[in-house]
């Protein structure tokens, strides 16, 4: 019993770290561009699929950790320019446009990758003993990569020029533009970074989950819930909410079936939304 609890909590924790990456991507796009990105789950899915293709081409899974976010970054930049820029500033239209993107991404993957879900073997096999249970080594690596990527993202946001520009435009678009920040470039970069984060989440997660053209559909509401519960615009809050959510689901899963665990966490989310719509962490973090 304790073993199951520990195993499922660890799984939940690691899955939460991956979701945190994806939700952060969603949050920056949402906060800076006013875009309700319905395609964000599919961005993650594209990441898992690209990881599969990169494994086929290079024969080495680790190559995907570099290649996939890069490809996603470029794809994101192109999409922003072609689809998002013309409708920027209108969240209602962004729903329709990103719904269109979502359909296109899913369908292109179905055409090229196929409709059958596939599994990828983890690049590191085997288990190690951890707190008395045998645990997949790759999952621990996945946790490490996620934490590294989260840290890198916050460093990027706080200590690089582009990151500073992104925060500036988010804070006050007009003033930032008046101070010479190239707002248009920042928009393109933001969308690209958001896609790259989700794509990176995809590479990390692909050996843990299945690669499937509908793999993003279930993930999308979870990411949105993390963004809202963490507090709109509160990036550390988003990451924390994602981890808490998945951890909670993992813990409940050791007592009940996965669906019941899902329902429990959703009920809890509604309670948070109704009682603390300003987010769970308001007052703790800025």
């Amino acid at each position, binding site marked *: 019993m304790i073993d199951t609890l520990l195993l499922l909590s660890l799984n939940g924790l690691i899955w939460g770290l991956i979701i945190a990456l994806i939700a952060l991507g969603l949050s920056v796009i949402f906060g800076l561009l006013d875009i309700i990105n319905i395609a964000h789950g599919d961005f993650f899915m594209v990441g898992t699929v690209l990881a599969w293709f990169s494994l086929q081409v290079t024969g080495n899974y680790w190559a995907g950790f570099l290649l996939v976010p890069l490809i996603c970054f470029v794809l994101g930049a192109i999409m922003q320019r072609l689809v998002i820029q*013309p409708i920027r500033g209108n*969240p209602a*239209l962004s729903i329709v446009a990103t719904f*269109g993107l*979502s359909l*296109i991404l899913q369908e292109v993957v179905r055409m090229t990758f196929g409709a059958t879900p596939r599994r990828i073997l983890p690049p590191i096999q085997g288990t190690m003993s951890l707190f008395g249970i045998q645990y997949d080594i790759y999952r621990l690596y996945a946790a490490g990569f996620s934490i590294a990527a989260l840290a890198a993202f916050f460093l990027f946001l706080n200590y690089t020029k582009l990151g500073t520009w992104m925060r500036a435009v988010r804070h006050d678009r007009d003033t930032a533009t008046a101070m010479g920040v190239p707002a248009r470039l920042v928009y393109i970069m933001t969308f690209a970074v958001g896609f790259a984060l989700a794509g990176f989440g995809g590479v990390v997660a692909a050996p843990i989950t299945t690669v499937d053209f509908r793999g993003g559909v279930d993930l999308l*509401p979870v990411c949105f819930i993390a963004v809202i519960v963490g507090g*709109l615009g509160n990036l550390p809050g988003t990451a924390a909410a994602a981890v808490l959510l998945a951890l909670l689901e993992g813990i409940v899963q050791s007592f009940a*079936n996965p669906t019941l665990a899902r329902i429990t966490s959703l009920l809890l989310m509604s309670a948070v939304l109704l009682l603390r719509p300003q987010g769970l962490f308001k007052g703790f973090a800025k």
Partner: protein
Amino acid sequence: MSGRALAERGLLAVFVVFLLTVPWSVPLLLNPFWVSVIAEILIWSLFAASANLLFGYVGLLSFGQALFFGFGMYGVGIGIDHFGLSFWPAFGLGIVAAMAMAFVSGILAVRLTWHYFAIITVVFSLIFYFIAVSAKSVTGGDDGINFALPPTFSFGTVQYSFADANFQYFFILAAVAICFLLMHLVVNSPLGKAFLAVRENDVRASLIGLNVYVIRLIAFVMAGFLAGVAGALFAFFGRYASASYMFYTFSGEAVVWAIVGGAGTLFGPVVGASLFIVIREVVSTHWEHHSLIVGVMAILVVILAPKGIVGLWRDWVDTPADSAEIPAAPELRTEP
């Protein structure tokens, strides 16, 4: 009467005549298969109208209308399959179930607005989706339940039932038409004006003495009614109810259809739903990957016609005298 109003009346008249003659004209022009496609479009238009009533008229973006569609659908399905109800009580059960659910969830949901409202509607509908999926003995889960449909009317030995394709079509047409008529009446009533006031500026609306919370709740229950009727009709139409129609992606499609057609206009949802379903039906017979076309279309429409197709038409034919009317497309901004 302005030129545009005249033109729109003319179009409406042509449309009504077309709808009334569908069972005869369509098999002649295309083939009989399209009669049932048009019946389906009518049902989905009603579903899109329910998202439009909330978003287009009251400014609440709901991603949870599939919940009420599902309650309407399961009200009919469970009513017939488990309780052995006949046609009308099952129809009533579906509608009442949907409205009751809308009332209960609305009490909580309409306390929130904009992003928060959108998320809580997703969360509520997901909760019931998962319940429906796991309660296999009652709902059949993702596989759903099939049932035999009892006759709609029976006078002695004469029966009218959905087995007759023409009767099925006209029943759906009548039900959808009544709902749109009701919506037209509500939108043009003082309540409809109150909806618009809340949509445009809820603070000002409350300052002139409107109870914003109650107005939003009324709209939410009305939208639940529309979605419930659509779900019940869909259950009759397919003799089938399934949890997969309660997933949030279906709610999203209703929102997309409404915005593409023209949010905040009565016929926008009809235009949007027709466009997407006709494309799907036409392309899917030739090409497996029809979603690709639908995706490209959705993007092109919002770039080229940001007020939706109905909005585009109005900009195109409008004379300056017309523009004194209510603004059609809501301007929703997330700015504090």
